[in-house]
């Protein structure tokens, strides 16, 4: 499923990011790497998504979040 469809409070593993742009590298540098466990904190203003990876909180705009494929943990 897409990250945007992950309900608040639910954890999932990142499977892939479906873009070839430089955003892939920055997402990985921020911790959103294939296999990483992310937990959805909720939807932010403007359609963004707030996730945690370990103790780190990351905000991702809605368009980019819709490019991230995850699998429920």
């Amino acid at each position, binding site marked *: 499923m897409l990250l945007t469809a992950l309900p608040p409070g639910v954890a999932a593993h990142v499977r892939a990011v479906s873009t070839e*742009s430089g955003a892939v590298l920055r997402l990985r540098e921020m911790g959103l790497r294939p296999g990483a466990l992310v937990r959805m904190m909720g939807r932010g203003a403007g359609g963004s998504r707030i996730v945690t990876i370990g103790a780190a909180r990351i905000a991702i705009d809605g368009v980019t979040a819709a490019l991230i494929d995850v699998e429920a943990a």
Partner: protein
Amino acid sequence: MSAPGACHGGGARAVVATTSPVGTASLATASRVPSILLVGNPNVGKSTLFNALTRARQRVVNAPGTTVELACGVWCPECDDVTLVDLPGTYSLIARSPDEQVAADAVHDPSHDLAVVVLDATALSRSLYLLGQVARAGRPVVAALTMIDLAEARGLAPNAAALSTALGVPVIEANGRTGKGLQELASAVTEALKNPCHVKGVARHDTAGVARHSTAGVGPHDDADDLPGNLTEAQQLFDWVETITDAAASSADPRATLTDHLDRVLLNPWVGPAAFLAVVWGVFQLTTVVASPLMDAVTRTVQGPVAGWVSAALVAVGAPSWFSSFVVGGVLAGVGTVLSFVPLMAIMFASVSALESTGYLARVAVVADRAMRALGLDGRAMLPLIVGFGCNVPALSATAVLPHARQRLLTGLLVPLTSCTARLAVYLLLAHTFFPHSAGTVVFGMYVASVALVIGGGLLARHTVMRDLKPEPLIIALPDYQLPHLRTLAIGVWTRIASFTRKAGSVIVVAVMVLWALQAIPVRGGHDVADVPVADSVYGAVAQSVAPGLAPMGLDDWRIAASLVAGIAAKEVVIGALAQSYALEDAKGDAKSASLGKQLRATVERTSDGAAGAAALALMVFVLAYLPCLATLAEQRRLYGLRWTVAAGSAQFAGAYGLAVLVFQVGRLL
């Protein structure tokens, strides 16, 4: 050119720039003071640590050839001074913005002796990735582990000793707020300068090989640049990071903290934007309620007792009257204008710094992202635009947070439409004079108008000259909320105010002195120099020729025209120029005891045929938008070139004129 991260004049030593093997210049000092870089992700407590280590022995400089600011200081780890450079926060040395490029260039410059890499205990994996890149660049490393208390609150504090063992370099738990661990950090750095430590398990590149990421003159990476190669190199570091976190970090589920609860409110799609507007409104209430009386007090002191003492002293030493007039009416008036502006700047800088250090500005980027996307920008563009409400000049520098040149250009062209605090002083005078019972609302309305102009200007540009602009993805770390650290805040405000008085202050003083000279030189009537009615001076003649152009906005008066011409030099000169015109008339006996506000009201009542309120609003709108100050224009020209600066300025002037005429013509009918 000297090295990225090189400190020019940091401390008391002479600094000499030399050329390094990688093409960037290197820092050297007469006595070869060791140079240490402070490297870390944004919002990891790096600047707090820097302030705790260097205290007041620091200054802000621009990285050579850029508008990126660096703080450089002198640190005395164990009684031998070293130069400490606080690099811009970055997530990666594969740069995607000018700030990140400066950090990457500095790390790859071999003239720096050591990197102190700040590791965020709440985001260890991300911090270790950056540390791995620093190690790969060949820099000896000491690690400072911060945010331990916040990681403990989440039940995820890493083990510093295990981390040190796994990395093979010293890892010191340090807290710039409390001072904890600073002595241990000093000892570790002193030892590392004697016996450099390199991180285990990361293959070091030679500097020339790595410099392909960072060669001077090459900008931040575009999307297509070397992506497969970068991903491969990054993956090697990700694998290494995993081995380190397996050895030293907790894998438990994090506990929810106050930050999580606050974020549910402050990032909420409905409450978030309202909370943001409330915060902005609060900041501007602070500037109007607190700064206004302080400005008045400074102005009264300079124009009253100080001017009196200086005049008396000049008379006592037998100075000619024209010289006394120049000193009091030119130099002292200029200095008084600058000083009166300081409280406003201090409050605005303190407010923005406090918002940043609490972690709220990162949330602003999220809350504002959708709105900014309509302009082809992302939420990060909100930061320079907010800074613009303090002062347009640092706001132009803040556009460096944006990764692409076109985004920086558009944001930089919109910045002059944000209403800086200099314009606030004009609104305050006009609002209190013409709308005494609703001055606060009128001033707030001017800020709403400023936001509307930014949006309108952005949309216009997006559909004309910026059609190719694509928004960048917003991927941003949200730090834990913290109370601002007062000492860090105070040092930051002091440094910025000092920079303002040096850079803008000199322009303002010179502008006021030039105004005095224009008013002192007669063009008709056979008057002596410095003893001429303003109407017969060069200044009056120019203003009289311009004034009819203001008739459609109900402001056909040479004094108002003159103040607007003077305001191109600096907006804070507008009031000074008005006061100067009326004061000079006072000297000739006209309108002797009326205050500036009363005289201005009488003038506008006459020029607007009784629609003074509409004309005053038109004047405020015109002052908001007609042209940025000289310092802003100069910075725009430096960043974007003459063509863009002239084109944007012309469009802004035409738009301001049209709007002001519209406001008056509609307002007079109501």
